[in-house]
């Protein structure tokens, strides 16, 4: 194998198509994730459009029931696995290394691998449309509807294998981000100095690491049932379909928090920035996030109250479900506390963050209402559930993500998104979302079941359904407006500067867009909201910071070289998974194609492990043998000169701005430090307000 990797040089293109295909730069991978997921968002939105068009009027015959089943299945699956998760991953990729003061993630090539596997998994799932066998059993595909006798075509195989491939991507990314956050923080950034978004990414990644194997096993069992005649979920063979529900929701409920915690993290960055106040009660918000992550494992059966688990099990899960509302409520009060007394600046990002808080409260309240099992018996499988999930995932997760888009877009591109169009986008989304989904509460309580492809007029559901469908048009207009905004903003000259919002995070201290190496000098972190600390100190010293960190010659900083092998290995994973769709029916080798995929994976991994360093860096690589299995350039700390900082300076110049007790920065005139609770001394000298 060494011969193979000796012949093929490491790719080195910095621009053009190949540079994107072979990139291992976390910022570029973040862009790839974001763009791909946005295209899937449009696709999932289109599927939602078919659903709303079909349901706009009673007794509609626009699509047949089969197509309708495919639409709601693919809409749900796409939005969850191909839109919200990868959009969150896009932020993980772009923001996390910048926010913790690192030059890249811990395993840059593994990161590229995650992206390619995600792309291929999404394509595999959607390839089902090309063979007219799209999955049609709902996004949680309850057994035994998914068994061969009831789903005879290959739709469910596409679904199971597509999710399996996507799981590989999610797991690889989650491993990477756990290690990155635990191990790659800039000096001085203790855990309790990490920005909230970093904390929530850590919790999300740990949830992914532990939750995904459970669905992996569920999907394996489903695939075996469908292809090898096993009896996991087949009652005739003694199997119990309820096992699928347990496996799915043991994964599925942590998954709910995997979807919402990143958005909560984004909102916890945006609200303080535009309130010009540190996050209220930071440690409590961190603690609440961690507690949500732990308690998320003890509530899964609330998805199954109508299954007949027995009164004891139902009561237990009812109580745990209500308990988990407590840390969530704590967070909401902390966000409101952050706004209280702040100098609120209603930029688009802030509007989306406020929209998140408002809509998430609505979704949270309807959630508590079906935490009550007796009331859930009424709501189960009705549009009330559909309303709830859209309030928390559209009004919650997606609003949080758009807050992040408007917030970090200037860092990514150096250009601000147009504020006027952005605000219009927000209001169209906010109003459209409520028009679409609020009526569904009433429809559900009036008995309209979810997943029916049409309904008779005498049920009295006509008006509200029409209203919901009109709301969809408003949302569509909002989405198109966002695309227009993107196109307009990308064409203009860079106008953002490095720090348009006077934000607290480390990522704002460097140029926009960030240089390849991110930080010329690895920052030294003294407290929470580090860049606020530095800016306020510089202002107090009389020379405010107006420029980003000056660029240096990139060749002086050793960064990981691009690589072909993540892509090759990802292709192997695709063939390994997708090859299961081809059943030759032969006696001994019914499924030959996965073996080819496995072989490609093997070649990819061996080549990956033995990859030579790029030519231009070959000279200064002192341990050429370090190849096997390692990331030879796990960059981080090319030892750079850490800025000399006079030790006492921080305290001396800004008594009023930095808590003398815990070192955290305070932007308003607190008498008590919100971080450590210690009394804050009165200002010893007047200072300039920034």
């Amino acid at each position: 194998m060494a011969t193979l990797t000796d012949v093929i040089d490491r790719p080195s293109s910095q621009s053009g198509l190949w540079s994107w295909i072979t990139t291992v730069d976390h910022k570029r991978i973040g862009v790839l994730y974001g763009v791909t997921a946005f295209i899937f968002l449009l696709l999932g939105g289109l599927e939602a459009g078919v659903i709303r068009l079909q349901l706009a009027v009673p007794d509609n015959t626009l699509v047949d029931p089969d197509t309708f089943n495919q639409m709601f299945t693919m809409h749900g699956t796409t939005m969850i696995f191909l839109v919200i998760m990868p959009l969150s991953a896009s932020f993980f990729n772009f923001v996390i290394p910048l926010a913790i003061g690192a030059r890249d993630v811990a395993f840059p090539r593994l990161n590229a691998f995650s992206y390619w596997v995600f792309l291929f998994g999404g394509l595999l799932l959607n390839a089902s449309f090309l063979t007219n066998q799209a999955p049609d059993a709902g996004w949680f595909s309850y057994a035994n509807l998914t068994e061969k006798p009831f789903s005879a075509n290959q739709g469910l195989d596409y679904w199971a294998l597509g999710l399996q491939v996507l799981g590989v991507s999610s797991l690889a990314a989650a491993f990477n981000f756990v290690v990155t956050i635990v191990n790659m923080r800039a000096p001085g950034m203790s855990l309790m100095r990490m920005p909230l978004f970093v904390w929530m990414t850590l919790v999300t990644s740990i949830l992914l690491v532990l939750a995904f194997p459970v669905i992996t096993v569920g999907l394996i069992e489903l695939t075996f049932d469908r292809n090898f005649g096993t009896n996991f979920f087949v009652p005739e063979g003694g199997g119990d379909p309820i096992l699928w529900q347990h496996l799915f929701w043991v994964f599925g409920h942590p998954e709910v928090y995997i979807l919402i915690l990143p958005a909560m993290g984004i909102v916890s960055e945006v609200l303080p920035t535009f309130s010009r106040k540190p996050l209220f009660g930071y440690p409590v918000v961190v603690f609440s996030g961690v507690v949500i992550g732990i308690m998320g494992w003890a509530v899964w059966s609330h998805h199954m109250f109508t299954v007949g688990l027995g009164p004891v099990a139902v009561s237990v899960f009812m109580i745990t479900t209500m308990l988990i509302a407590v840390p969530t409520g704590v967070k909401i009060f902390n966000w409101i506390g952050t706004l209280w007394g702040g100098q609120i600046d209603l930029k688009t990002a802030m509007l989306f963050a406020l929209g998140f808080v408002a809509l998430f409260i609505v979704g949270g309240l309807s959630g508590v209402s079906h935490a009550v099992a007796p009331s859930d018996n009424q709501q189960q499988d009705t549009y009330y559930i559909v309303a709830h999930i859209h309030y928390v995932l559209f009004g919650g997760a997606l609003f949080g993500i758009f807050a992040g888009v408007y917030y970090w877009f200037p860092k990514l591109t150096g250009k601000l998104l147009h504020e006027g169009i952005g605000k219009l986008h927000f209001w169209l989304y906010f109003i459209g979302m409520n028009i679409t989904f609020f009526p569904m509460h009433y429809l559900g309580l009036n008995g309209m079941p979810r997943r029916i492809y049409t309904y008779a007029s005498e049920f009295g559901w006509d008006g509200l359904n029409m209203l919901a469908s009109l709301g969809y048009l408003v949302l569509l207009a909002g989405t198109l407006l966002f695309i227009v905004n993107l196109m307009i903003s990308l064409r203009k000259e860079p106008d953002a500067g490095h720090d348009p919002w006077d934000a607290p995070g480390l990522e704002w201290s460097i140029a926009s867009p960030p240089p390849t190496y991110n930080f010329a000098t690895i920052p030294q972190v003294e407290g929470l909201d580090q860049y606020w600390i530095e800016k306020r100190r510089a202002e107090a010293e009389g020379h405010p910071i107006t420029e980003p960190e000056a660029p240096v010659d990139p060749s002086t900083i050793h960064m990981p070289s691009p690589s072909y092998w993540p892509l090759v290995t990802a292709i192997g994973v695709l063939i390994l998974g997708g090859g299961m769709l081809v059943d030759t029916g032969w006696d001994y080798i019914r499924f030959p194609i996965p073996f080819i995929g496995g072989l490609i994976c093997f070649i990819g991994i061996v080549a990956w492990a033995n990859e030579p360093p790029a030519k231009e860096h070959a000279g200064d690589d002192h341990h050429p043998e370090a190849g096997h299995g390692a990331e030879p350039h796990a960059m981080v700390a090319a030892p750079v000169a850490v800025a000399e900082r006079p030790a006492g300076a921080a305290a001396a110049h800004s008594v009023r701005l930095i808590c003398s007790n815990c070192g955290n920065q305070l932007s308003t005139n607190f008498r008590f430090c919100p971080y450590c609770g210690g009394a804050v001394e009165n200002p010893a000298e007047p200072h300039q307000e920034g």
Partner: protein
Amino acid sequence: MAHQMEVSHHAPEEEHPTSTGINNRKLLMWVFLSSDCLFFGSLIATYMVYRGQSLVGPYPVDIIDVPITTISTFVLLCSSFAMVRALAATNEDRQGGIIFWLLMTAFLGSIFIGFQVYEFNLFREEGLRIDTNLFGTTFFTLTGFHGAHVTLGIVWLLALAWIARKGRLGPKTALDVELAGLYWHFVDIVWIVIFTLIYLIGGFDTGPAGDPSLVPHSITGFLGLI
């Protein structure tokens, strides 16, 4: 950020410093193993939930052969000892020892796999296939995925031995061996759990005609008991 521009040239170190002092790759391996715990946990849970639920034979008591599997279990445990020796040889830079003990670990692992292939074939001849009953379904899935893990570990060990033949393994690259060792020991520990549950405890299970009070009737009933 610092207003200081000077950047020293890259001076490679053996290990880049990390926030926790734990090597990135080692931490990655631990995180991966934690994930794998849940993977095997789910498979084992499936087995336990369906224990004694088979509607037709052969039942475990008919075909499970505890003594034979005890031997293969013993061989697998010995392979963990060989793995420990391989890492020790790497740390002490005994090149012959590295290759010998890596190959020995892989060899003992292969013996275990050989026993498994023999057992699977025997069960098939005695009428237990993956689609025969719930016992076959859960048994072959769980032990099959464990066997796949062991096989992957053997490939990994052989690859390390291949690398070692040119003296590329030694104290500086001991982590390469240590990571394979972590994986290998983990797979071993999983087997101890599987052996205990499937063979020592579940190996004498009969069909549904057995005492129903010993076996929860279904998961639903099981949760109802809580």
